[in-house]
C-alpha cells in the first residue's frame, strides 16, 4: 500500500504545484501588477515606488524564488485592505468553511446512503423513481437561487430562520440545506447503482437463504461492499463543495474561505486571494490522501498484507485492485 500511497501523493502534488505556479504566473502575465493593485489615477512615481517596494522590478525568476521561499516560511504576503498577514486572515476563515463542509458532507452521506439503499431494493419501483427524480432536480437547481428561495420563504416570509450570520443553530440550516442538495443527489444515484449490483451477488442470496433479515443484509453485507465507489465520488464532491461554498458563504455572510475569496476579488486584494487559493489547494491535496487511506481501510484487498499475498500467490482477476493500481 505504501508504494501505492507514495505514487498517489506524487500524483496529487503535481496539480498542487501547478495551481500555485499558475496563479503566480497568471497575474504577472497580465503585465504591470501595479495596474491591478493601484487606483486608476495613480502617478507614474507611485507606480514605480509600488513596483520597487514589492519587488516587481526584478526578474520573474527572482520573484518566483522569493515567493516560494516565503511560502515555505508560511509568509504569504500582506493584505492590501487591512495590512494584516494574508496567512492569518486565511487561517481564521478556514475553520468556518471546514465546519460547514464537514457537517454538510456528513449529513449528505447519511441521507444519500438511506435514499440510495431504499431505491436499490426495488429497481424501477416507486422509491427508485422518486429518488431519481430528486437527483435530477438536485442537479438542475442553481444553488444560489435555492439559497435565495430559502431566504425568501423561511427567513423573510415565515421568519423562522435568520437571513445570514453564524449565531445559533438556526443559522446553519439554510447554508447546509443549500450546500447539501447536489452531493445528496449525486451520491444517492451512486449508492443506488452499486447497491443494485451488490444485491444481485450470490453471497446475498446465501445470506437470504440463511434467513437473514432485510436490514441485516443491507447494513452488514451489502453497504460495506457498495461503499467503495461512493467513497470516491464523495471525495470528488467534497472538492466540488468549494464551488458551492463560494456561493453559499457570500450569500449567507458566512465568514469562511469562499467569502474571503470573493471579497478579495471584488476589492482586488491579490495577496489574500493567492493565499486562499494555496490553502484550498493544500486542503484538497490532503483530502485526496485521506480518501486513499479510507479506501485501504474499507477494502481489505488494498491493505499491504493482502498486496503481499497477492504478489506471492497466483494472479487472480481482482477488479478493485486493478482499478486502484491503474489510477
Amino acid at each position: 500500500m505504501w508504494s501505492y500511497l507514495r505514487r498517489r501523493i506524487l500524483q496529487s502534488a503535481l496539480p498542487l504545484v501547478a495551481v500555485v505556479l499558475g496563479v503566480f504566473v497568471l497575474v504577472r502575465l497580465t503585465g504591470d501588477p501595479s495596474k491591478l493593485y493601484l487606483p486608476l489615477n495613480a502617478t507614474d512615481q507611485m507606480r514605480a515606488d509600488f513596483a520597487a517596494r514589492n519587488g516587481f522590478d526584478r526578474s520573474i525568476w527572482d520573484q518566483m524564488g522569493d515567493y516560494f521561499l516565503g511560502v515555505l516560511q508560511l509568509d504569504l504576503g500582506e493584505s492590501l485592505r487591512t495590512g494584516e498577514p494574508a496567512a492569518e486572515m486565511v487561517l481564521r476563515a478556514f475553520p468556518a468553511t471546514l465546519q460547514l463542509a464537514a457537517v454538510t458532507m456528513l449529513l449528505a452521506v447519511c441521507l444519500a446512503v438511506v435514499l440510495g439503499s431504499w431505491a436499490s431494493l426495488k429497481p424501477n419501483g416507486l422509491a427508485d423513481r422518486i429518488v431519481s427524480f430528486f437527483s435530477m432536480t438536485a442537479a438542475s437547481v442553481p444553488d444560489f437561487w435555492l439559497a435565495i428561495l430559502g431566504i425568501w420563504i423561511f427567513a423573510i416570509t415565515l421568519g423562522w430562520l435568520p437571513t445570514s450570520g453564524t449565531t445559533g443553530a438556526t443559522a446553519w440550516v439554510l447554508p447546509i440545506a443549500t450546500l447539501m442538495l447536489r452531493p445528496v443527489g449525486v451520491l444517492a444515484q451512486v449508492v443506488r447503482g452499486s447497491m443494485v449490483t451488490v444485491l444481485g451477488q450470490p453471497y446475498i442470496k446465501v445470506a437470504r437463504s440463511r434467513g437473514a433479515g432485510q436490514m441485516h443484509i443491507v447494513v452488514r453485507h451489502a453497504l460495506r461492499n457498495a461503499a467503495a465507489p461512493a467513497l470516491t465520488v464523495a471525495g470528488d464532491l467534497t472538492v466540488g463543495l468549494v464551488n458551492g461554498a463560494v456561493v453559499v458563504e457570500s450569500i449567507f455572510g458566512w465568514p469562511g474561505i469562499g467569502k474571503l475569496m470573493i471579497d478579495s476579488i471584488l476589492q482586488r486584494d491579490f495577496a489574500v486571494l493567492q493565499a486562499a487559493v494555496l490553502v484550498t489547494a493544500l486542503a484538497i491535496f490532503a483530502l485526496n490522501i485521506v480518501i486513499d487511506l479510507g479506501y485501504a481501510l474499507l477494502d481489505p484487498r488494498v491493505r499491504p498484507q493482502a498486496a503481499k499475498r497477492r504478489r506471492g500467490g497466483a494472479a487472480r482477476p481482482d477488479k478493485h485492485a486493478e482499478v486502484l493500481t491503474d489510477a
Partner: protein
Amino acid sequence: MPDNDASTVAVLTDRARRGRASGRPGLWGLLLRDKVATSAAVVLLLAVLTAIAGPMLFGELAQRQDLGSRNMPPLSLHLGWEYVLGSDSLGRSLLARIAFAAGTTLGVSAAAVAISAIVGSIWGMWAGFHRGWRESVSMRIADVIMSFPSLLLAVVILYVFNPSAANIVLVLAITRIPLYLRTARADAAELRSRMFVDAAQNFGAKQGAIVSRHIVPNVLPTLVTLATLEFCYVMLAESSLSFLGIGIQPPDVSWGLMVAQGRQYLADAWWQSVLPGLAIVITTVAANVLAAWLRLATDPGQRWRLQAKRRRRLIASIAPRR
C-alpha cells in the same frame, strides 16, 4: 432459425429495405415515442428560439424604464401584456428582460460547451488513438485542471482578465475540456484495441479512414450525451459567476445577474429574483431530461428499455401470421 417462414422474412426484409434493421426506429422516432423526452426537447427548443429571437423582439422593451409602474407583481395585466411577469425596480418588463437575458445566458453556455466539446473530443481521440507519451501528458494536464474546483479556477482567471462575455466563454471552456478529453481518450483507446479496427488496419485502411469511419462514429454518441449534460453544468456555472458579480457585467444582462440584482428587493418584490432563477431551472431540467434519454437511446445495451413496448408490438405483428 427453425421457423423461418416466408411472412416473417417478408416483414423483416421490408423493414430492412426501408433502411432500418428489424424495425429499429431512428433517434427521431424513439424521441417522439417518449413523451417526457419530447416535452423536454420542446422546452429546450423554445428556450433556444427565445434566445435567438428574444434580443431582436424584446431588445427595446427590455431597456424601457417606466418609474410609474416599478416593482409591479406578476399578472399586472391592466398595465399591458408586457407586465405579465411583473416589472423590476426601474419599471422594466420582467418578461422582456428574461427573454433578452436568455440570449446571453444560452449563448455563453452554448459557445462554451461547443468549444470545450470540440477541442476536448479531438484532443482525447488523438491521445487515445496514439497512446504512449501523448496520452500520459494529456491525462496529467486533465488531472491538474480537474483537481481544482472549476468555479474557483474561473474566479481566479476572471480576476486577472476582465469579465467579458468572451473571457467567460473561454474560462468555462478551459475548465470543462478535461471531461471530454478523458471520455474521448478512454473510448478511443478501447476501440483502438478492438478486432474490427485491427481488421481494417490489415486490409490496408489509412489512419485517417480508421479514425473517421471506425473511431469517431462510435465515440460520438457518448460525447453528444456528455455535451448535453455539460450544458446544464456550464449554464449553472455561468449563472453562478454572474450572480457573484464576476461574470456578465451590467448593462448586459443574464439570468444569474438578474437573480443577484433582484436580491435586494426580495422582501417586497420576490419575483425579481425568483422568476429568472425559475427560467434557469426549467432550462436545466429540460437539458438534464434530454441527456438522460440520450444516454439510453445511444447506448445499444440500454436502448431496449425505450423500445420495450415497440418490440412487443413488432412480435405481435409477426406472430399471428405464423
